[in-house]
């Protein structure tokens, strides 16, 4: 029997759910996360989740995180490395890790990459002024560290992140002066949009930032309307006073580690950009290396939780480890996942997965 551990990179919703499945089988698991706390984006998600009871719907992200972390307690086959960044990945499944000033190596028999995604930026004049933030950073400042990012915020982007972070800014007592969207319709859930609209936040389509204005920090923003080719229309400029510009313009999967060992990467816009070419078992082109959660295509956390379980189960089966009721569990998780992706909001993901050839 191979004594090397199963290594999970990233302890967000995908990584945590994968860990539980692996631990139950008795396998040695090494869970690595760069943060000082487990949970990934769940650490700052104070809102109630959608989905069904199976994905903890109606519970808040921060409370789901507690349940997921509690589910890992009591296992002596678990090693957790917090504040540890995996900086190198080698073809023999050796990982180079950096914890503080110390390097160490872990050799894995299988690797589950659940590194998530990074936030996309937006090019405009003065976008390097202090006060221009990505929405996730604003959410971390407020909800993890209790720090107000500013007092008057312009939100850019009407996806669920832009809508939810706008609401959470208001909950923190901060004024959201406006939300603008470059496309011609709201891209997130309408219930989230209605929620901020009734508290007075104007939501405007076909608009974006022309430039930020300010000497040492953001003092105002100049918006303009966009034409059907997403180009600014001169003469439509509008100046708004604010001290914060919050960008919620999409996420890009963090695939860099996999690229180091030659995992086949392909560009699929619907999934957020460069994604690993996974098969229906969430295995990449390198045997024994799996990818799940946002790194395999941008989706909701509820989908990531299910994907983690499926990937982990296949990692065990492929390693020759017996998993209790594997067949029936896999079938019901796949059904759950398909269910979540079935609606109009799953269309983009479905299209992306079809291109990837793994639409189940």
């Amino acid at each position, binding site marked *: 029997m191979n004594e090397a551990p199963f290594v999970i990179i990233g302890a967000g919703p995908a990584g945590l759910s994968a860990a539980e499945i692996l631990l139950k089988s008795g396998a040695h698991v090494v869970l690595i996360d760069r943060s000082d706390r487990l949970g990934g984006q769940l650490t700052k998600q104070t809102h109630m989740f959608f*989905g069904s009871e199976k994905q903890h*719907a109606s519970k808040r992200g921060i*409370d789901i995180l507690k349940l997921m972390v509690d589910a890992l307690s009591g296992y002596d086959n678990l090693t957790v490395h917090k504040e540890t960044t995996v900086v190198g990945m080698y073809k023999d499944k050796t990982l180079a890790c950096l914890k503080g000033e110390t390097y160490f190596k872990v050799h894995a028999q299988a690797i589950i990459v659940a590194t998530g995604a990074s936030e996309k930026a937006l090019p405009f004049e003065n976008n390097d002024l202090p006060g221009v933030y990505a929405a996730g950073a604003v959410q971390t400042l407020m909800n993890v560290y209790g720090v107000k990012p500013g007092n008057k915020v312009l939100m850019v982007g009407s996806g669920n992140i832009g809508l939810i972070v706008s609401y959470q800014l208001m909950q923190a007592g901060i004024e959201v002066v406006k939300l603008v969207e470059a496309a011609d319709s709201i891209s997130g859930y309408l219930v989230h949009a209605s*929620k901020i609209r009734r508290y*007075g936040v104007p939501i405007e389509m076909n608009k974006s930032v022309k430039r930020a204005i300010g000497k040492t920090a953001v003092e105002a923003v100049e918006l303009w309307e966009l034409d059907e080719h997403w180009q600014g229309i001169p003469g439509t400029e509008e100046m708004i006073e604010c001290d914060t510009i919050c960008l919620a313009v999409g996420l890009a999967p963090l695939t860099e580690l996999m690229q180091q060992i030659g995992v086949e990467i392909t560009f699929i816009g619907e999934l957020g950009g460069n994604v690993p070419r996974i098969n229906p078992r969430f295995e990449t082109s390198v045997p024994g290396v799996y990818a799940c959660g946002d790194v395999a295509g941008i989706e909701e956390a509820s989908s990531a939780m299910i994907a983690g379980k499926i990937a982990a189960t296949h990692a065990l089966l492929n390693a020759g480890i017996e998993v209790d009721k594997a067949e029936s569990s896999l079938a019901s998780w796949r059904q759950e996942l398909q269910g979540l992706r*079935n*609606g109009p909001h799953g269309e983009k993901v479905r299209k992306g997965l079809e291109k990837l050839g793994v639409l189940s």
Partner: protein
Amino acid sequence: MIEKTGVAPSALVKKEFPEKIVLKKPKAVIECYKDIPCNPCETSCPFDAIKVPDDINHRPVIDFEKCTGCGICVYNCPGLAINVFQLKDDKVLMKIPYEFSPLPKIGKQVNVMNRAGEKVTEGVITKVQNTKKHNKTALIHIEIPSAFLYDAITIEVKPHEA
């Protein structure tokens, strides 16, 4: 228009309300206008009054005969898309979800807002429920003039002083 502004037009809103005679008793009104993968309204209802038929992405359907207006779905809905309405004499009694701090005090006069965030009338807070089971989504009871049944949706929230 709702896809561009987040504001449900009144024709759409009225479709979700039962007949006024039904509102002699409190009833939940669900404003979930687009298919999303979500069903806590169905699973939280102790009276089996809400169904998300066939597919979790479908919009919920409420049976007003079974609904008691208890408000449990109101604080379980992740989209805060459900409110309870009751017509009593010349008043509307509303139960709304509320997730801002501080919570309003009972007896307080408040500005009542429409779906576009504009003040439409004033109301009085009659009850504030915020126990452990509400899980930080308080249930606020407000009394408003009955003329604003289809307009009122929440109470005003102001940013804190900078």
